[in-house]
């Protein structure tokens, strides 16, 4: 029998109030084992205080081919950034 253990994606939240961040993946038979192994593989030096695991098969991703359709529309909307509106030097706290 050579049935490989499923692959899990690992997300770690560090101590500084940041969101969980993807750090890599590992193989485990279930979620509990994935969390235990993630502790050993990805947090040997206080990298985090919370672990999320998700089966890689359950993750749906945007396709690189859709990059233009998805992300280009925001390119010409520079007015969404505060720097689009120059402020007079004399106006403070804005």
């Amino acid at each position, binding site marked *: *029998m050579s*049935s490989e253990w499923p692959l899990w994606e690992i997300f770690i939240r560090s101590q500084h109030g940041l969101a969980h961040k993807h750090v*890599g993946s*590992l193989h485990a*038979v279930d979620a509990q*084992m994935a969390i235990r192994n993630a502790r050993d593989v990805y947090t*040997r030096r206080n990298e985090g205080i919370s672990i999320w695991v998700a089966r890689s098969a359950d993750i749906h991703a945007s396709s*690189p081919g859709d990059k233009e359709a998805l992300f280009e529309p925001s390119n010409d909307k520079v007015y969404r950034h505060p720097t689009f509106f120059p402020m007079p030097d004399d106006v403070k706290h804005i």
Partner: protein
Amino acid sequence: MYAQMVDTGVAKVRDVAEMTQEERAFQDRIDADVKVEPKDWMPDAYRRTLIRQIQQHAHSEIVGMLPEGNWITRAPSLQRKATLMAKVQDEGGHGLYLYCAAETLGVSRDAMVADLHAGKVKYSSIFNYPTLTWADIGTIGWLVDGAAIMNQIPLCRCSFGPYARAMIRVCKEESFHQRQGYDIMLALCRGTPEQKVMAQDALNRWWWPSLMMFGPPDAASVHSAQSARWKIKLLSNDELRQRFVDQTVPQADYLGLKVPDDRLAWSAERGHYDFGEIDWQEFHEVIKGNGPCNRERMQTRIKAWEDGAWVREAALAHAEKHAARERQAA
């Protein structure tokens, strides 16, 4: 290096005129330092070469646990033992980061392990040498991990995103490995005359194999040229080797140890150390499987894999049974 003589499968580096439109767009992105991600289009040769390179690198981390593991039960103090265990555990972790990076390219973990065990994919030549004394553990941390850092720091900038990210994690941890090794050497060299002799003996045996880690000389290696073009090899073998010698010789001087090379001398003209000829025949013999420990290393890996088979199967069966029970209860 940890990945030596990676075959790119190309006979010569293709120039722009020979590339398809897709290949040209791909090369343009690499030239612009845009990272390649797993789902992006990539030439088959790039994918295959990276699978070989990352896989070799991962196998080296895993096999590299064996020579050091040899001394865990015999470390001279509890602190040294705890440190060595942490170091060997890191190497296992590095292997796992790298296997995961390779898996994003579409190769399975089982297939990689099978390739290693069948001798189809190599691991670094350095791990085929024995660790005869405690000083070897110090020397490995100092020289072998030192050489690894030299190679891995540029790889943090390589073109394949998952590999570059794995290298960043590895490099953060590797500096501890080198320092703990040098700390062992410091203790031995400040110790009794017998301890100093032991340190010198270890340096004598590991110096040349460490220089061989960087791989054969650059002259006319088509694989290196293609890998450089793809930015999966950022500095040449000879460049890295020279940097390593320049960095390490003063460290040996500080320890009061003699580097076993009569031709080693500072060249004011070049601003580098000159050093003697490397015995490339020995290197090729070790790569071919005829080093002092090749057979033992492979036997140990294969035995561990086979002896662990029932555990892998039982854990999977147990998880499936639990999942089925939960579905029934729901």
